[in-house]
């Protein structure tokens, strides 16, 4: 992948930044500038919480070039708390542990490395929600101050 392509999508890939439709309030991911619910322009950036659950998944044993070091890995559809369905790799979880309905949270990880010399692509993945001593709002929730 040319660095320019990854660069264009850095806000959505690094921190799951979507859009909100000012017309009907729908949250969009990936950003597409037109609301699929009401067909009006939707260009306001909206940081998604990163919380969701596994809607479906599959295990990849024959990876495409650039992903060999991570195989076997899980690719899942994640139903985000805000509504959108996102396809992403799961991390910090094995094929024997994952299940449909598993609560997950977004983390930013290495998606692939272009050999020893190429650019490193970072982006969102999802992992099982970290077990905490005290349960709290996600650290990736939007903060206004």
């Amino acid at each position, binding site marked *: 992948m040319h660095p320019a392509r990854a660069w264009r999508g850095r806000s959505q890939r*690094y921190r799951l930044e979507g859009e909100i439709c000012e017309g009907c309030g729908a949250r969009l991911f990936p950003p597409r500038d037109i609301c699929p619910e009401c067909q009006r322009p939707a260009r306001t950036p909206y940081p998604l919480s990163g919380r969701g659950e596994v809607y479906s998944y599959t295990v990849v044993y024959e990876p495409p070039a650039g992903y060999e070091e991570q195989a076997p890995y899980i690719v899942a559809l994640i139903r985000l708390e805000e509504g959108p369905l996102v396809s992403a790799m799961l991390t910090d979880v094995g094929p024997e542990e994952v299940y449909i309905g598993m609560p997950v949270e977004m983390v930013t990880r*290495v998606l692939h490395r272009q050999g020893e010399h190429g650019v490193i692509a*970072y982006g969102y993945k999802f992992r099982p929600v970290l077990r905490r001593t005290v349960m709290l709002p996600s*650290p990736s929730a939007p903060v206004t101050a």
Partner: protein
Amino acid sequence: MYENGHRIMKPSRPVGIVGYGAYVPRYRLPGVEISRLWTGGAEPPPVREKAVPGPDEDVVTMSIEAARNALARAGIAANRLRAVWVGSESHPYAVKPSATIVAEAIGATPHVQAGDWEFACKAGTEAMQAAIGFVGSGMADYAMAIGADTAQGRPGDALEYTAGAGGAAFILGPAEESLAILEGSLSYVTDTPDFWRRAHARYPEHGGRFTGEPAYFHHIVEAARQLMEALGTRPEDYTYAVFHQPNVKFPQKAAKMLGFRPEQIQTGLLVDEIGNTYAGSCLIGLTAILDEARPGDRILAVSFGSGAGSDAFSLVVTEAIRERRDRAPRTRDYIARRVVIDYATYARYRGKIVLDT
């Protein structure tokens, strides 16, 4: 005034820690597994186990998670940070900053100072000293300093037992908003070649026992002793102390040399469970202490970086710790998340198996 008053560093505007966060990867390689492979089990490991990064983790990804935890605790928007500085000796790129990726991922760009710091294991506290200066001078209200490493040890070398992975992020800000206020800091640096890695070399070299007395102990003890002398504090005035942790014995001995009791260093001594996290080492220990500290507690934190030098910090915990600490996962939550792997998996995850020829 005290005798060493001119050696201590104090910002003209009072500064403290407004937010902190840690990250430790979930994989663990037990020391007995390394010993089994290279010594037939004859050598007793210096630590029980070490944290190992997964194949999709590096200093950037660990820094991002620690930084998000620090922001959650601080309760400030990322675009209020005027600096994001990452200290490490395992930046994924030789040229291209880790800090720009971290700053972009947390939403701190574009009005932000960003850069990578290097000073072996004290790169993180080096960034912290600079962040104190940035806030203390009034140039910024908030500055973030991160120490993180995915440490490398040559297979079979003594360092392989301890070279771990993890990181911690701190947001420095005005003292009145802080969960721990800085009383003062002191840096102690000399040219001492105890450990190094040349450009393009894959693994570091070290001077064996030379890494002890003239390097680790001399710098840690002098930095700590002179800071306490300048502040007029004594070991018994501190509830907690945390020192750089290359193994279990060194910080225990340094504590004893300075007159600290084992109970004072216990909370921050994590090396037996996660290994030596290099630039993250004493900083992750500090996060574990803040997870448990009470208002009024005084903390001494002293880093050590080979080459060599130490930064010492004296902090006093405030009431703000009570409501901020549980806004993000505690350091112990990450340590408890533990998956044991064997040497073969470790070799694969750490890129020690050659796939491209």
